[in-house]
């Protein structure tokens, strides 16, 4: 099934919660989904026999420029039907909130923790949302473009990032 068909089907099912279909400027055609509906879309995509997107290859947080909304990108793959779809959700910078898919795709558990760790995106419904790569008491979200590292961490000087 092509990405276009998937998008059309999703649009029929979820209406205006499916925001747009991006084919330009990306190698992986992307469906932009409303942040609140994402879990439902992912469940639908996984359970529907025509899609069977049972494998979440990748989950990446993204901050384009430090001003606009943060986004989360989901790369889905079906091991049965061997087709792909990329989902993207936007969430506000000040209060980033996305529904968690950790129960649906267990692999998302750690990936969401990573996105939380590095971008501060709150995944609602995540069983154990805490920092994974950085220290538990680290301040700030390092991969945000507007991140300014603190001078010291527990008395240790933080080397400036080149």
């Amino acid at each position: 099934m092509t990405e276009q068909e998937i998008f059309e089907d999703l649009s029929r099912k979820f209406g205006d919660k499916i925001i747009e279909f991006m084919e330009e400027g990306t190698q992986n055609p992307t469906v932009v989904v409303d942040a609140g509906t994402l879990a439902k879309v992912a469940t639908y995509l996984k359970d529907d026999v025509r899609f069977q997107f049972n494998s979440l290859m990748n989950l990446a947080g993204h901050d384009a420029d430090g001003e606009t909304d943060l986004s989360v990108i989901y790369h889905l793959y079906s091991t049965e039907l061997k087709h792909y779809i990329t989902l993207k959700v936007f969430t506000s910078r000040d209060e980033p909130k996305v529904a968690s898919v950790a129960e649906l795709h267990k692999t998302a558990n750690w990936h969401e923790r990573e996105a939380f760790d590095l971008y501060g995106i709150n995944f609602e419904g995540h069983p154990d949302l805490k920092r994974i790569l950085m220290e538990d008491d680290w301040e700030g979200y390092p991969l945000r473009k507007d991140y300014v590292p603190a001078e010291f961490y527990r008395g240790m000087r933080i080397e400036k990032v080149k």
Partner: protein
Amino acid sequence: MSYFSNISSAITTLVDGMKVTMGYFVRPREHVTLQYPDEVWPIPTRNIGVGEIESYNTIRSKLVVDFEDCIGCKACERACPVDCIHIETFKAGPDEDIGTTKNDTKIKLRVTSFIIDMSECMFCDLCTPPCPEDCIRMTPDYQFISNDNVKLAVTPEERWRDRDHLIYEFSKVSPIERAQRQADAEKVAAAKAAAMEAKKAAAEKAAAAKAEQEAREAEKARAEAATATDSEAPPSPFISETPVDSAEPTPINIPTMESAPEPEPMDRIEVPMETIKTPEIPEVKPVSTETTAEPETSSEPDSSSEPENSSKGETENG
């Protein structure tokens, strides 16, 4: 029944395994151990097609510069992902002849400092291809052994002591000349600033800032035209310290240089910190080309960095 087949398979497979080890035990020694200082690994030869330099066909290890051939273009400095190369250049005076490289390129910049910090180098070999003169290269010398009694860092002040022997200064320019050039550059900069001030005062307009900006840019463009030997090179962030030959060129004080003592060999040259410290960068370039010669990382911990370090130590303790 599987009980007995288990036992029998256990015995047979274990004996099988023991055969292998015994086979190696009684075999004439085709050992893999290298008795390192007595035997050394045969360095593989490889021809990567750069120049005719025989020593180039080797493994990637210690990074060196044929300093006579360096034109100070800083292409390697920009290519370095970890900023382990620190170059300081000053524009040569109009009647000064620094020489030519082996490719007969006239050297236009006096390289007063060429530091390679091998303790930061990650041996990626990205700096060698951009070099227009093929003068920076990786040699097969992988034994970074210092015969000096290297002190381990015990205090914050001595933090970098333990890797002093890994910081190589290739420039043979004497510290006196270097200081001289630094002073000259500062003089030019001061003169420039004074001129700016005067200009600004004369203008007395709100557009003064804009004019200054324009002037700066113009200078920079000119300096770039002068310094950039590689057409690909983005404008260097070191422009501001380069003496800009505008209306009144300040010649380098050559007599002073001649009266200077013989330059020391390629060892570390004890240079006061002020000279190595880079002036403030006027604007932020694409981050990768940012080459701030961080005093505390690139150079010896001397007097100038002491207060900072000691205060840091206090903070850490506190």
